[in-house]
């Protein structure tokens, strides 16, 4: 009997909880749609506001796309990090070949490429136009050269420096030249630009927060009488705040969409000339867009900033309004 009662009570409680949850869901759906309706009621004002938010989001996002593309171009250059090893003059071709094989075995070296002194001379003769001058020499001035491609872990400079020191200490090697420092510099430059983009993003995100916050503040101010009446008839803070939070949400969503649209249009405009330029370099490079994942992130950031801005504003200004 009492066990039956207990299960009955439990079932009742469960039903009540479910009812509460359904009501909460219904309330949210209502507020969501209501605030969308409010948004649509003043299309020009709200669109202007959203455009401001959209542009603020689009700026850092487009920098990010740019950086992403530069990275994808320069990623292919990692392979061109190379160390040129000038061997001692007295090393024969055969010895040079075996030395190259020996280097190949070094775990820090990806691959080697031997340039025979005779081949070097022939190439220089045909390319430089100094053929006569070379004929005047009685012996080949070129040493055997090995081009070594170091294994790149993350392009870290100290490791490569260490490798060069080791190589230069070898008796067979006259001189080791690391001629790809400019790529290192580029990587560092990209790192700096990356940080600039992050700083800029933070500043513009703050701007979006402030813009949304201020817009919601004005909305709260404009609907003061409605808030007062709602409070008077027993509206909870959550109930009264909800439409404002959802307007922030909509600002974020539409701002994000506008940002996405701006970036997509910009990429469309740039696509053709970039491809033509790439063709001139004999590259198949093509601008990459935001993609699904990054588009979602952009939208999420928009929503987050919109909600955040309105939340701050609601917390600050709603309490001040009490019915009179």
């Amino acid at each position: 009997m009492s066990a039956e009662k207990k299960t009955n009570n439990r079932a009742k409680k469960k039903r009540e909880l479910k009812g509460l949850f359904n009501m909460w869901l219904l309330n949210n759906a209502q507020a969501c749609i209501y605030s969308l309706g409010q948004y649509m009621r003043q299309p020009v004002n709200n669109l202007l506001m959203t455009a401001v938010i959209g542009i603020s989001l689009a700026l850092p996002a487009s920098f990010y796309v740019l950086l992403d593309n530069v990275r994808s171009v320069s990623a292919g250059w990692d392979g061109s990090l190379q160390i040129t090893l000038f061997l001692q003059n007295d090393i024969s071709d055969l010895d040079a070949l075996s030395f190259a094989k020996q280097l190949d075995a070094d775990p820090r070296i990806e691959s080697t490429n031997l340039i025979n002194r005779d081949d070097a001379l022939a190439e220089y003769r045909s390319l430089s136009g100094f053929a006569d001058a070379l004929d005047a020499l009685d012996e080949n001035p070129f040493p055997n050269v090995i081009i070594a491609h170091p294994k790149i872990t993350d392009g870290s400079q100290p490791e490569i420096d260490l490798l060069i020191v080791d190589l230069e200490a070898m008796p067979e090697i006259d001189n080791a030249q690391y001629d790809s420092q400019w790529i290192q510099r580029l990587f560092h430059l990209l790192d700096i630009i990356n940080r600039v983009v992050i700083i800029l993003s933070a500043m513009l995100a703050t701007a979006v927060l402030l813009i949304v916050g201020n817009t919601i503040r004005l909305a709260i101010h404009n609907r003061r009488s409605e808030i007062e009446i709602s409070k008077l008839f027993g509206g909870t803070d959550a109930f009264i705040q909800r439409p404002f939070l959802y307007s922030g949400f909509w600002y974020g969503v539409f701002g994000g969409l506008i940002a996405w649209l701006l970036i997509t249009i910009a990429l469309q405009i740039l696509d053709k000339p970039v491809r033509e330029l790439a063709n001139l370099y004999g590259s198949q490079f093509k601008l990459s867009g935001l993609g699904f994942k990054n588009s979602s992130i952009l939208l999420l950031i928009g929503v987050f900033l919109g909600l955040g801005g309105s939340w701050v504003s609601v917390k600050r200004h709603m309490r001040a309004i009490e019915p009179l």
Partner: protein
Amino acid sequence: MIRFTNVYMTYPGGSEALKNLNLHIDSGEMIYITGRSGAGKSTLLKLIALIDRATRGQIIVNGQNLERVRHNRIPYFRRQIGFIFQDHRLLYDRTVFDNVSLPLVIAGYRHKEIRKRAQAALDKVGLLNKINNYPMALSSGEQQRVGVARAVVHRPIYLLADEPTGNLDPALSWETMKLFEQFNQVGVTVLIASHDLDMIKRMKKRIITLKKGRLLTHAGTPIKE
């Protein structure tokens, strides 16, 4: 039941709105609060609705000691009260229906129930045919009736009216008072702040008079001038 025991109300800045007020209002009573402006009529209503809190003394409404009602419980407390104002305080960007249904939306009623009850309330005040109008399209008297419909739509225990007839001509005022009487007859406790003495006296209900925050007459005797 509403009971004030030694209630003082001092606003920030030092103006004393109520001084040592003792008052008992039974459930189902209809009572007029009168006095000059600044006598403390509105303050009395605000204390009952927890819009302000008394500086001193005890107020009990429907068995609840108002001092003990926490801030986050105030909304639920207020749902047992209906308000009517002199300046109507309707939302002018919403239809009559939306205005009247607001207390029901706040309390979380289902859409079907909201429509049914709002229609019934508007029918009661004779404005069912204006349900889709905007308040601006209505006369002042009609707007006041929309306000009355909004105040009773959620079937409150208490009806608080602050100068409800201040902007109405005598005939409309009388109609409004009769409307309040009808709600009182079905059990709603009605408190009306008004300085329209002639009309109040004709209603033959209990009248209390405030003067500079003190109670003048009490205990069911209509005041004599």
